[in-house]
């Protein structure tokens, strides 16, 4: 068909670009993840060994990978949608005053430059001069070594990352909340539903599609945690803030073990893919309603 052929010609440039700059590198990375490509191989391809799945096997046996995975999971679970949903509900509630002000204030961090605000947060977290410890000192809490204590570094990064990112989710959730017809609440109230039951049987089901989208976006994004630890802690202290992506960066671009770095990337891809698939399945079963 001529139309069909014309259509192919029209999409060909885009397909070509996607093929050359996306699928080809991904395929190359997949092959690379089955080899021990490193600087020796860069010098001479005869130094390249095909190692099959051993990059993956040794990765899964590396304690640091599991630590990074745990750190990332910690970050996703604590930092992801919970806080955003809470703040959006609060802002939507009739009890809150100065809504417009808070909405702007809470959205502002999203448009700031990450590195610049990370540097400022590093000052806030400073053990001896930081504003945060100063405030805590005011209520009698001993100074906390936020970025130096392995137990506190990840919570500190979560506080920062949530502050930085949650405005975006909040705006989406707020839009979702505003699109729920007021009549539904009215009807629920007439039936004598408590605030909690209104939330459970009106707000949540109506918000379900948006919650799903937000959670997929957030979880996929938060699994790719990188810039925050890179700027604030370099993965320290005691590697407690090494995320999976940070591990990949170090393997690939610091040590030039491109083979095992590619393996990390594919493992991360599979994890995100699997979790997203689970989420979709879970919501299709209608768990929210």
């Amino acid at each position: 068909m001529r139309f069909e052929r014309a259509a192919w010609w029209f999409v060909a440039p885009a397909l070509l670009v996607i093929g050359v700059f996306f699928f080809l590198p991904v395929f190359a990375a997949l092959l690379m993840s089955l080899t021990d490509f490193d600087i020796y191989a860069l010098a001479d391809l005869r130094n390249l060994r095909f190692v099959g799945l051993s990059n993956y096997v040794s990765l899964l046996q590396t304690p640091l990978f599991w630590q990074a995975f745990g750190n990332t999971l910690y970050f996703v679970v604590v930092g992801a949608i919970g806080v955003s949903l809470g703040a959006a509900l609060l802002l939507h509630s009739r009890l809150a005053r100065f809504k417009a002000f808070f909405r702007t204030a809470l959205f502002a961090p999203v448009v700031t430059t990450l590195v610049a605000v990370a540097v400022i947060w590093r000052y806030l977290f400073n053990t001896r001069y930081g504003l945060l410890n100063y405030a805590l000192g005011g209520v009698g809490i001993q100074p906390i070594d936020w970025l130096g204590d392995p137990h506190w570094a990840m919570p500190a990064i979560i506080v920062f990352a949530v502050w930085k990112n949650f405005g975006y989710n909040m705006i989406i959730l707020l839009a979702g909340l505003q699109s729920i017809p007021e009549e539904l609440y009215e009807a629920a109230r007439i039936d004598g539903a408590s605030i909690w039951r209104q939330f459970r049987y009106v707000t949540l089901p109506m918000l379900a599609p948006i919650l799903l989208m937000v959670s997929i976006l957030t979880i996929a994004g938060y699994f790719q945690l990188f810039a925050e630890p890179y700027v604030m802690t370099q993965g320290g202290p005691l590697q407690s803030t090494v995320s999976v992506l940070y591990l990949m960066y170090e393997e690939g671009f610091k040590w030039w073990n491109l083979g095992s770095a590619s393996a990390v990337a594919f493992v991360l891809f599979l994890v995100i893919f699997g979790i997203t698939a689970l989420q979709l399945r879970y919501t299709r079963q209608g768990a929210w309603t």
Partner: protein
Amino acid sequence: MSTAGARLPWRWAAPLVAIAVLSLATACNRPSSDQTVLRFWAMGREGEVVAELLPEFERSHPGVHVQVQQLPWSAAHEKLLTAIAGDATPDICQLGNTWIPEFVALNALQPLDPYLAGSSTIDHSDYFTGIWDTNVVGGKLYGVPWYVDTRLLFYRRDLLAQAGFSAPPKSWQELYQMLAAIKGRAGPDRYSILLPLNEFEPLLMLALQQDEPLLREDGRWGNFESGGFRRALEFYLGIFQRGWAPPLTNSEVSNVWNEFGRGYFSFYISGPWNIGEFKRRLPAEKQDTWMTAPLPGPNGPGASIAGGSSLAVFSASRNKPAAWQLIEYLSQPAVQRRFHELTGDLPPRRASWADGPVADDVYARAFRDQLERVKPAPKVPEWERIANEMRVVAERAVHGELSVDQAVKELDVRADRILEKRRWLLGRGAGG
């Protein structure tokens, strides 16, 4: 349609021809007849100021034009590797001397021994031995030292005097006595010494002061379970366990210079770049309170790391003789002194230290002394990674998660895993 398919190659041909013509044109852009263009990559501050030294070189070498490209340190390593992968290396480059083994493994560098043999300006016995040694891999010379970095003690003279000591420590034992005395006066909120946990250098220096090498059998295996490294690690951990050093990384000390001025710590191990920083950042009334001193060793003055940058010629260069001439020019003592004035970098030749501001600088004196006792880190491409593991494991030991025994075992396991490919390559090389 078939005609479209048939025409397609011609449509592609035009841009291809254009690209070919353009690349020919750029190829011709280099010396058409008599002019040699030397491409010189230099990093950071050195890259900024080296251009000031070049007009004189171009005057004395008519027909050679030097094109300097400045790389930021943070991107330099990656850019060089990319250049090697893409056959786009410069003629001559500034290289951190710990990178040399890696670039030798990549077959990227030109051995310089034949040039050295015919040179009248570069006399290798005039160079500090440890620094020169960093450029020799497998018996061949791959670079000429340009400037040196080594680390030693920066200390607060006044605080040391208050603790009852008139001179800096010469041995490990004296250092321990001073750290204890200073901590005794400083109280719980201040410390005797700052050993940032994100730097591997302090521990590496202590380890280099030992007789046993850090790797054994030509860099095939880690040697961390040896008595020497064990002693170094015990000494290092002892400083933290007794509360003389805070278990902090550099990024948590918001301003090292201010904190040094305030007496948060009295000893700091750092390099020559901090001479200028302390001069500039400490207030005038604090200027006579600080000094530099060579590193103490297990028994008397000890060794430190042979760091710094070298000048190397790439094997793909077509202008090697001219590149060597530039190295010779930059290695002249008079030029090195001028370079020191511009950058504060310390010269690698004894003759360059004989005269000028570098000879008069009281803070540089300890460096001059220390440079006679510097040792290179193990010369294998994997070293930087192993050093990083050393830092990570030492940090865990500082936090009490590992004992000395567990830490050295763990380090050997990690080093052996990293060196696996090297063993395979060396084994294959020996086999055939």
